[in-house]
Structures are given as structure tokens and as C-alpha cells.
């Protein structure tokens, strides 16, 4: 079993890339792999507490909560979040906030890195 680090820099709801990242993380965990998920830039919106489910909008908060319970590590870029007005108390339970070096450290011992940096 390996370790997959995923970095995702795309916005919640607006782009489906975060949906992709969460679903891929889920499939990898189901197969016994370890997964780290780093969200940076607009991707930090994934970590916001209090997202409301609508059928019109992609709703990832529930999946993220379930997956962190199964061992998924989700970390949001601290500066990116602060710039957007997301403070520590705005962060979903089970999600961490660190500086960018966390992502590099996660890549350090990852077997595979999937960096989703497209627009």
C-alpha cells in the first residue's frame, strides 16, 4: 500500500476539481492507501465550516468529514485562507491549517503526487 499526496488549487463548487480530488482520495483510501490532501489558493474554500447542502451545488463537507474519520489528512494553506477571511475558527473540524512547507513535507515521503494546479 502506498501514500498519495494530492494538491488542489481550484475553487470549491465553481470547479469540479475539488470533487475529483475528494473522490479520488476516497477510492484510494478504500483500497488501503494513505492519502494527504493539500488545498491552497481558492481550494482553501473546501475547509470552510458551515457549508450548506443544496442540490444545485456540489457539497463536499460531508464526504470530507467522513474521510478524515477514515484517516484522510486534509490541510489548508494558512495564508491563503486568511487572505480570504477564513480564520482558524472558520475551519471545519478535522481539517488542519499550516504553511506551504506542509505540502512539501507530505510530498517528501509520498509514493505518488497528483498536483491539480490547472485553472
Amino acid at each position: 500500500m502506498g501514500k498519495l499526496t494530492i494538491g488542489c488549487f481550484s475553487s470549491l463548487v465553481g470547479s469540479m476539481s475539488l470533487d475529483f480530488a475528494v473522490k479520488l482520495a476516497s477510492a484510494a483510501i478504500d483500497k488501503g492507501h494513505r492519502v494527504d490532501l493539500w488545498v491552497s489558493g481558492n481550494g482553501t474554500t473546501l475547509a470552510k465550516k458551515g457549508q450548506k447542502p443544496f442540490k444545485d451545488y456540489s457539497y463536499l463537507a460531508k464526504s470530507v468529514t467522513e474521510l478524515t474519520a477514515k484517516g484522510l489528512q486534509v490541510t489548508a494553506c494558512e495564508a491563503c485562507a486568511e487572505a480570504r477571511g477564513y480564520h482558524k475558527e472558520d475551519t471545519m473540524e478535522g481539517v488542519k491549517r499550516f504553511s506551504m512547507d506542509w505540502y512539501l513535507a507530505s510530498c517528501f515521503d509520498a509514493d505518488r503526487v497528483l498536483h491539480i494546479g490547472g485553472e
Partner: protein
Amino acid sequence: MRLGIFVSDFRNSVDTLDRLKAEKLGIILVQNGVYHATVKENGKSSPILDKSTSLYALYEDLATRGLTSADVDSRVKVVTYSDVVDLIFNEYEKLAWL
């Protein structure tokens, strides 16, 4: 290197795919990238399908867009998220999301 490339757009704004070289190069079509597997424009298939003999398209993203296996070019294999995990760990050592 064994390189797995994720293509997530139908109209690519970068020409990186044309330049990347690898001993083994696979293309995994996801999100709007799946249209490369299904759409013929003026009767022509997407030139992306000529770039590799290892071509995959994500089932979930096909289904989301109203597309089925019957719409997919015969050179492209339809895969699930679970299959993508295996491709990542077993077939390729480096990944690129363009």
C-alpha cells in the same frame, strides 16, 4: 520515466502535452477532458487520441455529461475512480495534471 497525464479540459490553453516525452506515457481523460474521447468535430476525432496508445476516460465524468461507453472511441478504455487509483500506483510513477 513512466508518466501519467491527466487532461481535464476540452480546449487546452497549454501546449505542454505536445512536448512531454516519456518512455511510457498514458493519458487519463477526466472532467471536460472526456469530450476528447467522445466528440468528433466535423467528423474528426480529437488529435489527443493519437498521442498515446494508453488512453483512459473516467466513467463518472462521462456519465455526468450524458455520455456512455457507446459514445467512446474504441481506442479509449473507460475506467472508474477505483481503476484510476490502480493506474496511479501500478502503471505510472509520475503524474501531470495539465
